């Protein structure tokens, strides 16, 4: 009697304590993330909201200014110019990036002799330090000594001023971005490898030519990855910064003043911390808006397998 009573008492308590110990272990092991998330993400985001309503130059104490930073977003011509430049760059660069990387992936899914070399070569530019790439591309675009104008010369196109003129500077950044499509390409290659051979064979027996198979089978099956690549590319393109800082410092005539560069200037050159925070939130809302819009639009043409 006594022994059974004892064991009955102990069992639930031990089970509970084992469970408790797992709970504690779970929180302990996850604590780096929990602490880091609260300290380095949540708190800065909340603090950033506080900053939006204050004027602060880091020297004197922050001063409450109500909505003036937000009003400034809409009245400051440079803020809208920076957004325009960034959107222009993104909307021009991303679709072409997707097309190039998709075509490359299609080509590199064929049994080519040097396939691995091509894959590695097309991928490599994105792992190189962006600072080094920017330093080189700055000179690639040089009107007199750059290799781009020399290559265009082979086609009979006269030298272009690229980074030295307002009209072509953004285009130059778009062209540079075409060399940084390695990640998108690898994702497409992985996706293409997952398309069952049998589906393509069945279609070809039914008389579908290669173009027809591409448009009616391959592209629809790849739409989720196209969406994924597009979303990531848009988020990244909206944050273009390093090339602009190094190659043009935002010029000429602010033609390459992109949003993050402007935020950086307001925050870390003019020390308008409040206004910089407001600009960052504005960009954040726009990026999220674009992402939601892409998901929304994609519902019509993205094909998900069940």
């Amino acid at each position: 009697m006594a022994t059974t009573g004892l064991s009955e008492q102990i069992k639930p308590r031990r089970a509970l304590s084992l469970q408790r110990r797992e709970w504690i272990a779970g929180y302990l092991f996850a604590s780096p993330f929990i602490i880091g998330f609260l300290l380095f993400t949540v708190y800065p985001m909340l603090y950033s909201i506080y900053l939006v309503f204050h004027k602060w130059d880091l020297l004197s104490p922050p001063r409450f200014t109500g909505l003036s930073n937000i009003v400034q977003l809409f009245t400051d011509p440079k803020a809208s110019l920076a957004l325009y430049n960034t959107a222009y760059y993104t909307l021009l660069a991303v679709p072409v990036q997707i097309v190039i990387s998709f075509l490359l992936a299609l080509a590199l899914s064929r049994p080519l002799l040097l396939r691995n070399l091509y894959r590695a070569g097309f991928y490599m530019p994105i792992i190189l330090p962006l600072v080094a790439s920017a330093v080189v591309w700055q000179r690639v675009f040089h009107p007199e000594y750059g290799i781009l104008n020399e290559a265009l010369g082979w086609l009979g196109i006269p030298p272009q001023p690229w980074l030295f003129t307002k009209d072509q500077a953004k285009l130059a950044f778009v062209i540079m971005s075409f060399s940084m499509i390695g990640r998108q390409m690898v994702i497409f290659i992985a996706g293409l490898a997952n398309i069952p051979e049998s589906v393509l064979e069945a279609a070809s027996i039914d008389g579908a030519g290669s173009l027809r198979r591409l448009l009616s089978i391959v592209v629809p099956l790849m739409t989720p990855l196209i969406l994924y690549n597009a979303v990531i590319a848009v988020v990244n393109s909206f944050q273009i910064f390093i090339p602009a800082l190094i190659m043009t410092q935002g010029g000429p005539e602010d033609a390459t003043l992109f949003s993050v560069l402007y935020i950086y200037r307001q925050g870390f050159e003019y020390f308008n911390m409040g206004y910089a925070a407001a600009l960052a939130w504005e960009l954040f809302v726009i990026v999220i808006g674009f992402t939601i819009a892409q998901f929304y639009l994609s519902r019509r043409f993205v094909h998900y397998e069940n």
Partner: protein
Amino acid sequence: MATETHLSESRTPVSRRREALKLRGRLGDIALEVLMFALLLFFLAPTFWMISSSLKVSNEIFATPVTWIPDNPQWGNYLKIFEVLPLWRFTWNTFVVVSLAVIGTVISSAMVAYAFARLNWPGRDIWFSLLLATMMLPDVITLVPRFVLFRNFGWINTWLPLIVPYWTATTAIYVFLMRQFFRGIPYELEQAAMIDGAGRLRILFQLILPLSVPVLATVAVFAIIQHYNDFLNPLIYINSQSLWTLSLALRAYNDTNVSNWELVFAAATFMLFPMVLLFIFAQRYFVQGIATTGFGGR
């Protein structure tokens, strides 16, 4: 009806058509091979140009047409950049910062991934969704307030902002990658170790991690690239030249040397070299990582 006629007359034509298609396919592949090779040269031209120009005398850089192989390679250009810039200092700085950040990334991501992969604790799923949500968060949103935070900590002009945050498993994709891998390790192994009296920490470090070398390598490789190439954080937090990393040094050198292209190219090539080596020797980890997660690089 149409199909019937098609069928009846198609004994030999089909096979002939197939032959023709095969031939066309082969010719197409040859054309594609040539096209891809040309494109690859085009793609890598800026990098080739940089390397070759880093070995030229100034006049040769500004000569048209471009010479792709320098007439008389100036290896001395590389000695010169070490004279004008304390490059070893910057290399050492970069090495320390990158090592500490990467070690922190791997250890903290592994711990957190273990908690998400193997432990049951209340709130786990919520925290996991929060972790995944951080992937959609543009970094720019925390740029300014983080600076203020680290300023309050007294961390400005130290390496701490470049290291400490990465000890908190901040990069969701690394945690995700490891979690997926850990979940594939048989649970029985862990139970056996527990019966033998091993604690959770020992299980993670002596059982799980040794079995997870491929995923750890993938994460480490991505983290090395991320931190080696990082420019924005050093730009904001580091002022003193003695603490500069290579990316800051290259940018400063580029800004002050308008005419000596060969030296700027030599400095850029020097900075690029470790990444190329890493790429050559760790290529399979790249491909693994990107193919399974869609991340890696920029």
